[in-house]
């Protein structure tokens, strides 16, 4: 089973939920941190990294000895990543989406490829958890291809927990789209509600089942609960706003370590998700 933890708003507690869920299960679990722009899961899971792989994406290299400057490559490229100007071909690597259009269309076979580095993939283990995360190279704009590579490490024999990036656009879609269930983490504030609504719409567009965890549940107001009730969305768990929890978080200490009662609550959260997926 693949469970994704996502949220429209950043900083609502995605990583807290995803990491503690993985740590509470601690058996036959794979943790994929798909927030490749700012991965934080490792701070709480503390894996021993065993393997680091540099991940690239192919971009065109033009052999001007073979090129006839016909301009077909420029015409097919929707991203303005290749231009033919008089007897020159210019490639703009950072604009290329690696669609292969230019090298497939070139009749002279004048285009080969080289890799643009997207970032690194790191894999490791920590007491019963297989850990994978991606780390986007600074300056690289496109995270979805690296997220795709993190997901290629899926081990379907395990319970898979995905920590998603925040938001509702392409990186999030890429992170959650193969899930069996999406846990949306929200805080009960006006910003939290606004971004929860966007996230719910996104998950519904993907036709995936979802439930909500309310973090810092005693701040703000009742509107997130009212919204969930009106929309028929189950609230799976609530976590109170507690200075002790926040301070432990700040030092990278998992919630279930300072509040051991939460281990059972996270296992119960998992059981709830399992029942809903089985339905």
């Amino acid at each position, binding site marked *: 089973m693949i469970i994704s933890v996502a949220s429209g708003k950043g*900083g609502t507690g995605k990583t807290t939920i995803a990491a503690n869920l993985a740590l509470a299960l601690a058996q036959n679990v794979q943790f994929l941190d798909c927030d490749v722009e700012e991965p*934080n899961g490792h701070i709480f899971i503390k894996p021993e990294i065993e393997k680091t792989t540099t991940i690239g994406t192919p971009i065109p290299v033009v052999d001007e000895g073979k090129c006839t400057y016909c301009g077909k490559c420029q015409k097919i490229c*929707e991203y303005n990543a290749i231009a033919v100007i008089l007897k020159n071909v210019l490639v703009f690597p950072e604009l290329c989406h690696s669609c292969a259009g230019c090298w*497939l269309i070139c009749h002279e076979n004048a285009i080969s490829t080289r890799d643009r580095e997207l970032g690194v993939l790191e894999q490791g283990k920590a007491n019963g958890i297989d850990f994978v995360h991606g780390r986007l190279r600074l*300056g690289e704009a496109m995270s979805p291809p690296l997220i795709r590579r993190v997901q290629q490490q899926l081990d379907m024999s395990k319970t898979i927990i995905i920590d998603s990036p925040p938001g*509702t656009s392409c990186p999030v879609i890429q992170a959650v789209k193969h899930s069996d269930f999406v846990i949306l983490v929200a805080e009960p504030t006006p910003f939290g509600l*606004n971004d929860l609504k966007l996230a719910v719409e996104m998950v519904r567009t993907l036709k995936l089942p979802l439930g909500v965890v309310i973090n810092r549940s005693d701040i703000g107001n009742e509107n997130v609960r009212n919204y969930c009730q009106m929309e028929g969305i189950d609230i799976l768990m609530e976590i109170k706003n507690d200075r002790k929890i926040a301070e432990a*978080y*700040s030092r990278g200490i998992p919630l279930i370590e300072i509040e051991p009662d939460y281990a059972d609550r996270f296992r119960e959260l998992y059981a709830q998700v399992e029942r809903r997926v089985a339905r």
Partner: protein
Amino acid sequence: MKEIVIISGKGGTGKTTITAALASLVKNNVIADCDVDAADLHLILNPDIRQQEDFFSGKTAFIRQGDCTQCGKCVEVCHFDAISPDFVVDPVSCEGCGVCVAFCPAYAIDFNQNLCGQWFISKTRFGSLVHAKLGIAEENSGKLVSLVRKQAKQMAKKENAEYIIVDGAPGVGCPVISSITGASAVIVVTEPTLSGLHDMKRVVSLAGDFFQLSTFLCVNKADLNPDITEKMMEFCDTNGVHFAGRVPYDESTTRAMVEGKNIFEFKPGPAAAAIREIWAEVEDTLRGNKN
């Protein structure tokens, strides 16, 4: 005219709260919300929308089943696994590259522009606001961010504004790169947690080392972990980052948000006082009174 972008690396550190506070503190400014993916600034600024435009960007392939000969060429050339074995394009996976369109021997694939969202020009009690809403599950957030900034610049010229205050997105990817490229300065809002520290270092490196921008750091909820706050100040010292100040945890920030107010309007407490000092520090530095 100076364009100041507020970013954070990690989400939820208080970017929008601080942007909304600066919006009222800085006189003669235009405000832009470039967190087009999960925009929240309007919840405080309560904009009166004066102009609304559709945002079209990117294309999606659509196979006309009646004309399709099921030859399989499109599936073969698609590098995004966006076409099913029965020749239906999944619009969510389609990157809009048009390679299938170019290679289809039956010319059976339509390729139309997507309506990806809307953008708005509004009046607010703190000045003009340019903002946007990216459609659900849509792409091209970077292009929408560029468009919002361009409109904000035009507006600032027209109004002869001294500052553009920009609320940015979390992360270090496409929308963040689009919102900081060519800006006058960035203010990184972080929190004193290991996650905050990790993410702050990445986004500071992106802004400072990669884009060579003048970078300020502001630690929100600084009293949560004074040791990490201290580390962040040291990091600023050794990395050429201007330390702009600390904002203490102040529960009136959430209560202000619930009432749709910024922290100066609600009940100016310790956080409000700190933000006032931070802005004075940023403005002094930008005017060259300090280095």
